[in-house]
C-alpha cells in the first residue's frame, strides 16, 4: 500500500470500459478525497457532419461512428426514420428487427459479464490486475467454459451478420421495414442458436449464483452504502409495463418506485434536459420537471439512471417466464423494489440476457419470421423523426429534422451513458470518498473506485462522440495544490 497525502489521483483512461475515459481524484490536506471527477475526451463534429446528408444515410453513419454498439444506433436511427416518414413497418419486419436486436443484446451483455465487468467478481475485486481480466475468468471457470463463451459470442455475431450485414456496420433496416428476410431453410440452425443462447444465459446465471450470490463478502460489497444511490430510473416498457429493448414507451419511476412519468419518444424533450459542467465535455442529463439540483440524490434531484438495473426497476416485470423467475429472485434477495445498489447492475444484466435469449426463441419460432412482407414504402413528406431503443447501456434517443427532401437540417442524439452521466459522476465520487482515507491508496482500492462506474458498462465512444474501442488507462494522483504526484498506467481491453 502506498501512503500518499494531499494528492490528486487521476485514472486515465479507465480500464475495461468501452471508450476512453479518465478519473481525477483530488485529495485534501489530510489525504482524504475532496472531489473525484469522471472525465471523457470529446469527439468533435458529429452534428456538422450529419447536416446536409440524406436522412436515409443516418442508420449507417450513426452505427459507423460507434464500433461498440452499432446495432443499437442502427435500430434507434431506423425507428427515427419510420417516424420521419410517418410509416408503420410491416409486422414481420418489426419481428425481424426485434430478433436481431435481442441477439445483439445477448451478445453484448455476455461481453460485459465475462470480459468487461465480470472479472471484478468472478476473479475478485482485490485480485492482482494481471489476473482481473478474461484470462483470469478462464482460469477460474475452466477452459471448456472459456471455449463456450468465445464460441457463443462468435455464433451470435455470425447470425447478426447473416441477417443484418456486417456486425460493426449493419445495413438491415430501411425506413418502413428491413432489407432482408429469413429464408425457411435457415430456420433450423437459427432455432438451434436461440436454444443454445438460452442455455448459455441460464448457465451464466448459475455461474453468477455459485460465485457471487454464495459469497457473503461479495453480497456485502454489492449492498454497501458506497455503491448505493437513491435516484430516479428510466427505461422502455411494453403495453404491460414489462421490459422491452426494441419498442414501447419511456417510463420513469421516482426513488421510491412510483411512476413519475410515461411518455412516447416524441415527448422526450419535455422530460430530459442537459446540464453543462466546466470540467467535463459530457452534458449531464436530468429530468426537466424536477430540475437540476447538483450531484445529489433523492426525489428533489433530477438525476436519473438508465441501463439494466434501471430497466428492471422501471418495469413491473419481464415478459418471458425464466427471466421473470430470475427477476423475482433478484428483488426478493435484494430487499424489494426499487433496488438502488449500483453493483446490482451485473445481476440485472444476467436477467436481461435470459430475457433476450427467451425472446429470440419466441421470435425465431414465430410464423411471421420467414414472411417476405418486409417493407412498407414511405409516402409522406418528411419533417421531424424521433426513435428510441434500449441500448445495452441504457435508453438511446435519435432525433432528426429534415427539409422536404429528407436532407438533414438538425440532429440530436442522447446516448445511454449520457443519460447515466450524473449518477456515474456521483458513484465515482462516493466510492472514492468512501474507500480512500488518510492518503492510503492501493491497487485494490483504486479498482474498487473503478468498479463504481464499470457496473454501468459506460461507453464513452459516443457519449461525447468519442473514439471507438478502448485505450490504456492512467491513474494520476494530485495534491491539494493540483500537482500530479503519482500516476499509474494500465492497459485497457474489451
Amino acid at each position: 500500500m502506498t501512503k500518499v497525502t494531499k494528492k490528486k489521483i487521476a485514472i486515465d483512461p479507465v480500464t475495461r470500459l468501452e471508450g476512453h475515459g479518465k478519473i481525477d481524484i483530488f485529495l485534501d490536506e489530510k489525504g482524504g478525497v475532496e472531489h473525484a471527477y469522471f472525465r471523457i475526451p470529446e469527439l468533435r463534429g458529429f452534428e456538422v457532419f450529419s447536416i446536409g446528408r440524406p436522412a436515409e444515410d443516418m442508420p449507417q453513419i450513426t452505427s459507423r461512428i460507434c464500433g461498440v454498439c452499432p446495432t443499437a444506433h442502427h435500430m434507434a436511427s431506423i425507428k427515427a426514420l419510420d417516424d420521419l416518414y410517418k410509416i408503420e413497418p410491416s409486422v414481420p419486419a418489426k419481428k425481424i428487427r426485434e430478433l436481431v436486436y435481442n441477439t445483439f443484446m445477448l451478445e453484448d451483455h455476455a461481453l460485459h459479464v465475462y470480459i468487461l465487468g465480470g472479472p471484478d467478481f468472478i476473479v475478485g475485486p482485490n485480485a492482482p490486475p494481471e489476473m482481473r481480466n478474461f484470462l483470469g475468468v478462464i482460469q477460474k471457470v475452466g477452459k471448456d467454459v472459456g471455449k463456450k463463451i468465445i464460441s457463443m459470442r462468435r455464433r451470435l455475431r455470425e447470425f447478426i451478420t447473416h441477417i443484418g450485414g456486417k456486425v460493426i456496420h449493419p445495413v438491415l433496416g430501411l425506413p418502413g421495414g428491413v432489407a432482408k428476410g429469413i429464408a425457411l431453410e435457415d430456420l433450423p440452425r437459427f432455432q438451434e442458436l436461440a436454444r443454445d443462447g438460452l442455455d448459455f444465459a441460464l448457465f451464466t446465471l448459475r455461474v453468477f449464483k455459485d460465485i457471487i450470490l454464495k459469497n457473503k463478502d461479495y453480497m456485502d460489497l454489492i449492498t454497501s452504502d458506497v455503491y448505493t444511490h437513491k435516484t430516479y430510473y428510466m427505461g422502455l416498457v411494453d403495453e404491460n409495463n414489462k421490459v422491452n429493448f426494441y419498442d414501447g414507451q419511456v417510463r420513469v419511476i421516482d426513488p421510491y418506485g412510483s411512476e413519475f412519468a410515461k411518455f412516447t419518444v416524441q415527448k422526450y424533450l419535455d422530460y430530459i434536459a442537459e446540464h453543462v459542467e466546466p470540467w467535463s465535455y459530457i452534458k449531464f442529463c436530468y429530468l426537466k420537471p424536477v430540475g437540476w439540483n447538483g450531484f445529489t440524490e433523492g426525489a428533489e434531484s433530477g438525476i436519473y439512471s438508465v441501463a439494466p438495473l434501471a430497466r428492471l426497476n422501471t418495469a413491473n416485470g419481464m415478459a418471458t417466464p425464466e427471466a421473470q423467475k430470475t427477476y423475482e429472485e433478484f428483488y426478493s434477495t435484494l430487499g424489494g423494489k426499487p433496488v438502488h445498489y449500483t453493483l446490482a447492475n451485473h445481476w440485472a444484466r444476467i436477467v436481461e440476457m435470459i430475457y433476450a435469449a427467451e425472446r429470440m426463441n419466441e421470435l425465431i419460432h414465430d410464423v411471421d419470421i420467414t414472411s417476405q412482407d418486409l417493407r412498407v414504402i414511405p409516402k409522406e413528406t418528411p419533417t421531424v423523426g424521433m426513435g428510441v431503443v434500449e441500448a445495452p447501456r441504457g435508453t438511446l434517443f435519435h432525433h432528426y429534422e429534415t427539409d422536404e427532401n429528407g436532407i438533414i437540417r438538425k440532429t440530436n442524439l442522447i446516448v445511454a451513458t449520457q443519460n447515466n452521466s450524473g449518477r456515474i459522476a456521483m458513484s465515482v465520487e462516493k466510492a472514492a470518498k468512501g474507500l480512500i482515507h488518510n492518503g492510503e491508496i492501493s491497487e485494490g482500492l483504486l479498482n474498487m473506485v473503478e468498479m463504481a462506474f464499470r457496473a454501468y458498462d459506460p461507453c464513452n465512444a459516443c457519449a461525447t462522440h468519442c473514439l471507438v474501442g478502448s485505450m490504456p488507462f492512467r491513474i494520476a494522483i494530485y495534491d491539494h495544490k493540483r500537482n500530479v504526484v503519482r500516476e499509474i498506467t494500465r492497459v485497457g481491453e474489451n
Partner: protein
Amino acid sequence: MPNHGQSILVLGLGNDLLKDDGVGIAAVQKLRDVLDISIDCVQASTSGLGLMDYLAGRDKVIIIDAIVLVPEKVGQVFEWHLDELSTGTVFSPHYVGLFEIREIARLLTLPFPKELKVLGIVVKDPFAIGEKMSPEVEGAIDKVVEMVKKIISIWQKETEIAFP
C-alpha cells in the same frame, strides 16, 4: 506469387468516419488492388476480443492500424512483430488486447497465427468525425503498401524454401 496453401490475412483496423483513424481501412482498400487474390484483405472496426474472430485459424497476419504518438512523428510508419509490442508502449484503441488474445487462444487451444506483424501509422487527429485524412497520414499509405508487399514476399520465400 504462389501462396502454397498458407492462409495470409491483411487486416486494416479503424473507422473511416473518424478522419485519420481510417488510415488502416484506406491502406487495405489500396492493397486489394495490388496483392494476389489468394491473400485476404479485410477491413474491420473491431477491437479487443472481437479480433479473435479474424485471427483464429490464420497462418500469418499483418494488422494495419492508426497509432497516437508525439506530433513530430505524424505520418511515420512503425513495424512490429507481436513479440516486440509491449502493451504499455503503443496507444492505439485497437491493438490493446493482442497479447491477451494470443494468451486466450493458447489457453483454449484455439489456432492462432504463427506470424503476426503490426504496422502502425502515426496519426494526428483520430478524434474528429470526417472522411478526410490529414495529408501526412494519407501520404503514408503508399509506404504501408510497399511494407506489406515486402513482408508477404519474405513469407512466401520462406514457404518456398520449406515446401519447394
